[in-house]
C-alpha cells in the first residue's frame, strides 16, 4: 500500500456548475475513498412554502428551486396540491404539461452532455452541443413566454394555451434538430479521444445501483429499469403518447451519455405525438376548496424521480411540504462510482452524474 493523499475538489472549482465538495483520498493517481458534501445552497424554500405563501402561490415558489427542471417541480407540486383539494385536471392540461416537461428534458440532457464533453477536454463538442441546445430554449420561450422560469403548471391545470402556430414551429424545429442529433450521437459514440475519458470510467454495476437506490439516467445506464413514466399512468398518460424506456448495460460515463442521447429521440417522438393529437378541453379546473389531508406525487424529472409530499390543514397555508430531489437519491452511488478511477477523470464523472445541488439543498 502506497502513501495516501487527500485532495479536495470544490466547493469552487472550474469543472463544477454548482457548489459541491468532494474530498478524495488518493493512492498515486487512483481514488480509493470519497467524502461528499452537498449542502452549500440551502435557501429554506420548504419553510417559506409552509409559512409565507398561500398554497396556490407555492407552485411559483417551487419553480425557483431549480432552473433546469423548473417545470418538473411546478408540475409535481401541482399534482400533489390537486390531490389535496381533490380535483381532476383537464385532459388538454395534462398533455401540455407533458409537452413542456419533454422540451425541458431535451435542453437539460443536452446541457449535461455538453458538460461531459467539456470536462473530458473536448471543448469543440461542448460548443456544438450548446449550439444545438438553443432551439429547445427558444421553443420553451415560445410556449411558456420565458426562457428559464416557465411558471407553466398551476394548481388545477396550466397557465397558458398552446397556439397552433407555435405547435407548427415546434414540429419544424424538431425536423431541423433530428439530423443534428444524429451527428451528436455519432460523435459521442465513435469519437476516439472522447472514448478514452468516457469508456469504462465511473463504473457502477446493476447490483450496486439497486442497493444504493439510484434513479434517473444514472440508473438506466446500468440496466436498472427505474423510470416513473413507466410505472404511473394515472396522473400523466405517458404510455398514450408513445413513451418507451431507454436502457443500457455498461454503467459507465459513455453509457450515461448514450442513454441521454437516446432519450432525446423518445422525447422528440412524444412531443410530435402530443402536438399531432392534442385533445380539446378547458385548461384549468376552478375550485375554492382548501387543501386537506396528506398526499404524495412522483414525477420523472430530467435527472430522475422527483418526490413531493404535502400536508394540508383546511387553511390557505400548507402545514408541511417535503421535496426529495433526484440528486439526493444519487449521492451514495456518486461516492461509490469514483472508486478505482484516476483523479484526472473525476470532473468528467461528476458531469456525467448531472448533479443538481439547488434541488438537493433547496
Amino acid at each position, binding site marked *: 500500500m502506497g502513501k495516501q493523499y487527500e485532495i479536495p475538489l470544490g466547493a469552487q472549482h472550474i469543472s463544477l456548475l454548482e457548489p459541491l465538495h468532494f474530498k478524495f483520498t488518493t493512492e498515486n493517481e487512483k481514488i480509493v475513498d470519497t467524502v461528499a458534501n452537498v449542502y452549500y445552497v440551502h435557501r429554506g424554500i420548504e419553510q417559506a412554502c409552509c409559512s409565507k405563501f398561500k398554497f396556490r402561490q407555492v407552485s411559483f415558489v417551487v419553480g425557483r428551486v431549480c432552473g433546469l427542471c423548473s417545470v418538473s417541480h411546478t408540475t409535481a407540486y401541482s399534482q400533489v396540491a390537486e390531490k389535496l383539494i381533490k380535483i381532476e385536471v383537464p385532459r388538454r392540461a395534462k398533455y401540455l404539461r407533458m409537452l413542456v416537461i419533454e422540451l425541458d428534458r431535451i435542453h437539460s440532457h443536452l446541457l449535461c452532455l455538453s458538460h461531459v464533453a467539456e470536462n473530458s477536454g473536448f471543448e469543440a463538442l461542448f460548443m456544438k452541443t450548446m449550439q444545438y441546445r438553443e432551439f429547445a430554449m427558444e421553443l420553451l*420561450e415560445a410556449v411558456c413566454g420565458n426562457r428559464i422560469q416557465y411558471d407553466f403548471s*398551476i394548481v388545477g391545470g396550466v*397557465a397558458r394555451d398552446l397556439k397552433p402556430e407555435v405547435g407548427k414551429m415546434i414540429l419544424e424545429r424538431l425536423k431541423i434538430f433530428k439530423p443534428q442529433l444524429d451527428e451528436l450521437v455519432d460523435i459521442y459514440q465513435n469519437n476516439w479521444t472522447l472514448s478514452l475519458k468516457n469508456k469504462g470510467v465511473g463504473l457502477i454495476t446493476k447490483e450496486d445501483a439497486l442497493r444504493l437506490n439510484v434513479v434517473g439516467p444514472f440508473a438506466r445506464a446500468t440496466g436498472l429499469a427505474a423510470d416513473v413514466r413507466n410505472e404511473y399512468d394515472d396522473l400523466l398518460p405517458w404510455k398514450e403518447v408513445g413513451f418507451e424506456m431507454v436502457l443500457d448495460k455498461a454503467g459507465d460515463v459513455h453509457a450515461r451519455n448514450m442513454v441521454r442521447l437516446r432519450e432525446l429521440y423518445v422525447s422528440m417522438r412524444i412531443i410530435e405525438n402530443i402536438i399531432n393529437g392534442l385533445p380539446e378541453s378547458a385548461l384549468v379546473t376552478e375550485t375554492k376548496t382548501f387543501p386537506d389531508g396528506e398526499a404524495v406525487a412522483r414525477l420523472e424529472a430530467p435527472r430522475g424521480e422527483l418526490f413531493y409530499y404535502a400536508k394540508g390543514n383546511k387553511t390557505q397555508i400548507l402545514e408541511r411540504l417535503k421535496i426529495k430531489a433526484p440528486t439526493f437519491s444519487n449521492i451514495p452511488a456518486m461516492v461509490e462510482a469514483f472508486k478505482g478511477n484516476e483523479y484526472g477523470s473525476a470532473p468528467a464523472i461528476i458531469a456525467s452524474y448531472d448533479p443538481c445541488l439547488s434541488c438537493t439543498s433547496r
Partner: protein
Amino acid sequence: MIKYFTMKTFFKAILNLFKKPVTIKYPFEQTFIPDDYRGMIGFNENLCIWCRRCEMACPPGAIVFSQAMDGKQTYHFNRAVCIYCSECVRACPKEGAIFQTNVPAKCALKEENINNGWNILYGEALMSRAAYAAEKKRLAAEKAAAIKTEMEKKEAKS
C-alpha cells in the same frame, strides 16, 4: 479508412472558416422574442373596480394598493419584485384592467432605491388602508351614536 476520415474532418474544419457565425450581435440585432412573451404588467385605472384580487394573488407581493382618506385607491407596482407569472391577470374579474404586454422590463437602478423604497412604500400603503378603515369605523360609530342620542331624545319627549 482512417486517412479518409482525417481528410474529411480537415476539409470540414477549413470550410467552417467561411461559415456564418452562429451567435448574433446582440445590441445591434434583436434576439428572439415571441409575441406573447411574459413582459411588463400594465394597469388601466379607468376599468379597475378596486377589488384588490390581483394584490391577494400576487406570489412575490409586487402589487399593492394605497388608500387616501377620501377613499380613493392608488395602484403601485414594482417591476423588480414581479416574477411576470401573470397570476394577477388570471385573478382579475374585469378584463383589461390589468394586463401583460410583451415588452421586457427595464433593469432596476440604484437611484430608484427599488428594494428598500418598495418595502417602505408597501408598509405605508398597508398603514394608509388601515387608517382609512379606522376612520370609516370611527365615523360610523359617531353616526350610530348620534342616531342613538336622537332616538333617546325623541323617547324622552314622548
